[in-house]
């Protein structure tokens, strides 16, 4: 099944062509460079930029896949969660194309597609069976989400823990901004963190001792960093201090996730569950992956990650793969074009 997928949920304009689980092309036009100038997202600008770029991105995705619209079997589009006006651009484009080429349109949950992104394949593999991975655990760590779930199968999720305030990616971006590393600064923070000494600053691990509440929280840690930075600023920040702060902060931020997962796994490890899926932009952080692997090893679980860096952050290839999997595993739903609409506050278990 050849799918053209579109995602315009937030800052990136993305389109991809997928063939079953295989990614044929994956084009991402990031607004980060544009926003860097402004220091943030510019919503009206975001909408206009999505509108200006969407045709180019779709054409590029088709061209890279060496195919044309007439060969496409279905269109997949992200309907939420995300920024309403940005989502609208992708949805409208998907509807236009679906009408023009009389194609099935499959609405997709952005967070679900992050969750399933490790299943995307780089090459056609006729023996590939995604079902052998299920049931599994899943972790989505991105700018807008921190979500730990039990995946019974495609479309069947049980939320085990989620954030009660800031998402992990946001907490890292905000720390980077506090340290003067720009926005979005999570990736820059990681670079600095590699040069610093771990635990050189006494930052509190969030909700330590209260892991059984199964919640992620980053507001307290953010506050603690703010106080430290204000204190250090009086003496003057230098590269070494920034690196040490970055290392300590990142370490504690990840330690919190590990502790919550560890609490859960030590109490509820389910039989026949062998994998943890990792998706979302922060998943690209090597320290986080290392910490996860160490944790999972003691429970005989394996970490499954997307095959390419371009599948971690927001992208459309994961949307195409999810659409294929959903279409295959749930009875084919005939989505009516006019009923498909943006769902900015969509959660993982909500019907689309």
């Amino acid at each position, binding site marked *: 099944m050849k799918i053209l997928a579109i995602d315009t949920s937030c800052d990136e304009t993305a389109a991809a062509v997928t063939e079953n689980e295989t990614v044929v092309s994956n084009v991402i036009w990031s607004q980060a460079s544009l926003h860097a100038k402004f220091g943030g997202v*510019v919503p*009206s600008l975001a909408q206009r930029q999505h509108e200006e770029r969407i045709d180019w991105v779709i054409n590029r995705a088709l061209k890279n896949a060496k195919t044309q619209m007439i060969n496409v079997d279905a269109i997949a589009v992200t309907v939420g969660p995300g920024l309403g*006006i940005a989502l609208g651009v992708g949805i409208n484009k998907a509807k236009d194309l679906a009408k023009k080429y009389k194609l099935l349109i499959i609405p997709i949950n952005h967070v679900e597609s992050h969750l399933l992104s490790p299943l995307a394949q780089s090459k056609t593999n006729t023996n590939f069976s995604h079902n052998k991975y299920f049931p599994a655990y899943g972790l989505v760590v991105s700018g807008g989400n921190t979500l730990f779930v039990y995946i019974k199968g495609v479309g069947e999720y049980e939320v085990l823990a989620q954030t009660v305030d*800031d*998402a992990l990616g946001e907490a890292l*971006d*905000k720390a980077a901004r506090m340290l003067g590393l720009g926005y979005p600064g999570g990736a820059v923070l990681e670079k600095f963190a590699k040069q610093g000494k771990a635990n050189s600053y006494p930052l509190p691990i969030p909700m330590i001792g209260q892991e059984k509440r199964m919640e992620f929280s980053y507001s307290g840690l*953010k*506050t603690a*960093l703010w106080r430290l930075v204000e204190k250090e600023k009086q003496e003057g920040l230098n590269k070494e201090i920034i690196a040490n702060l970055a290392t300590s902060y990142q370490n504690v931020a990840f330690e919190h996730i590990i502790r919550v997962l560890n609490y859960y796994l030590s109490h509820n490890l389910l039989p026949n569950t062998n994998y943890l899926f990792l998706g979302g932009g922060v998943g690209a952080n090597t320290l986080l992956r290392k910490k996860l692997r160490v944790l999972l090893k003691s429970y005989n679980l394996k970490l499954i990650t997307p095959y390419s860096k371009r599948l971690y952050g927001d992208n459309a290839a994961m949307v195409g793969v999810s659409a294929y999997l959903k279409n295959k595993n749930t009875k084919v739903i005939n989505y009516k074009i006019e009923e498909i609409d943006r769902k900015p506050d969509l959660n993982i278990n909500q019907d689309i």
Partner: protein
Amino acid sequence: MNIVKIKDVKNELVVEVLQKGGLVIMPTETLYGAFVDATNPQAVEKLTKYKARPFGKPYSVAVLDQKMAEEYVKLNEIAKNLYKNFLPGPLTVVSQGKHRVAIGVESETGTLGIRIPDYTFVLDIVKKFGKPITATSANANCKKRPYKISDILDNLSERQKSLIDLIVDAGELPRNEPSTVIDTTLDDVAILRQGVVKLNSENFILSMSSENTQNFAKELWQKYEIHTGSRAIVFALDGPMGAGKTVFTKGLAKAMGIKEEITSPTYDLEHSYNTLPNTYYLIHIDAWRMENSKELQGINFAKKITDKSIIAIEWADRVSDEIRKYSEDAIIVWVKINYGKKENERNLTWDIV
């Protein structure tokens, strides 16, 4: 449950109910209060059940005069000054307690809030009763401020209603603010709730925990709730990173009856939440990623105002020009949250522009 009009009620009846450990709803100069014998543990327990309050939230008590107050708390110079200048009146003065009231009335640190209502009916009752009575608002935790009996009864379960022994109905009360609460036991005198009585020119309170901040949001909501449906209400939140803007919004949402978890909208720029039943709609916006006020137009802020939405907007200072444009069409409450001296302390100020 017995409802009696204030002109028909005999003070002896009220005193008798209180003596038996009963719960009485009576008017005061601020709003309807729920009163029980503050020295009777069973009565206080009953009150806590009625209010559906989490354990550990203290009650203030009403007394007749300073003399009676001094049987229950130690008054320092500051407190004595406040008594002299403001009481009787809509002010609650928190002092070090003498542990002569039932458990759960004093705070965990042993402080006790004292109030002398400027309301003859209640003072007469306290005089006849001879002991302090709890002076808490008659609404259940986080529910609408009670200015008339139906405000109370409409928001109670049958079980809560069954706990009321007597209601003294004085009709609809003027919409006065709840009492100002001042803590005199700290190094600096701290206002814990701001009512009509003001110690300085600005609206200011000290929050000592995220619960306090959430409670403050609840108070502000209850103050402006009356405008829902007629105008948009905007809570414009300003304060440094990690000061508690999302915490404030959590308290606001709770007071509005929203059950969902409020999480940071930084990434998506806005989240919206429905109350159950769908009376209100809270839109939670984050301007952290916005660089100038025009960007607020990009998420249809004007339409949200004409829709008379309830809006909490973090980092409002970044887009303040745009927000101020709507000062005619919306109630705009500017809330400033700043770090206090001690680790958990926050200074909260607010203003209507």
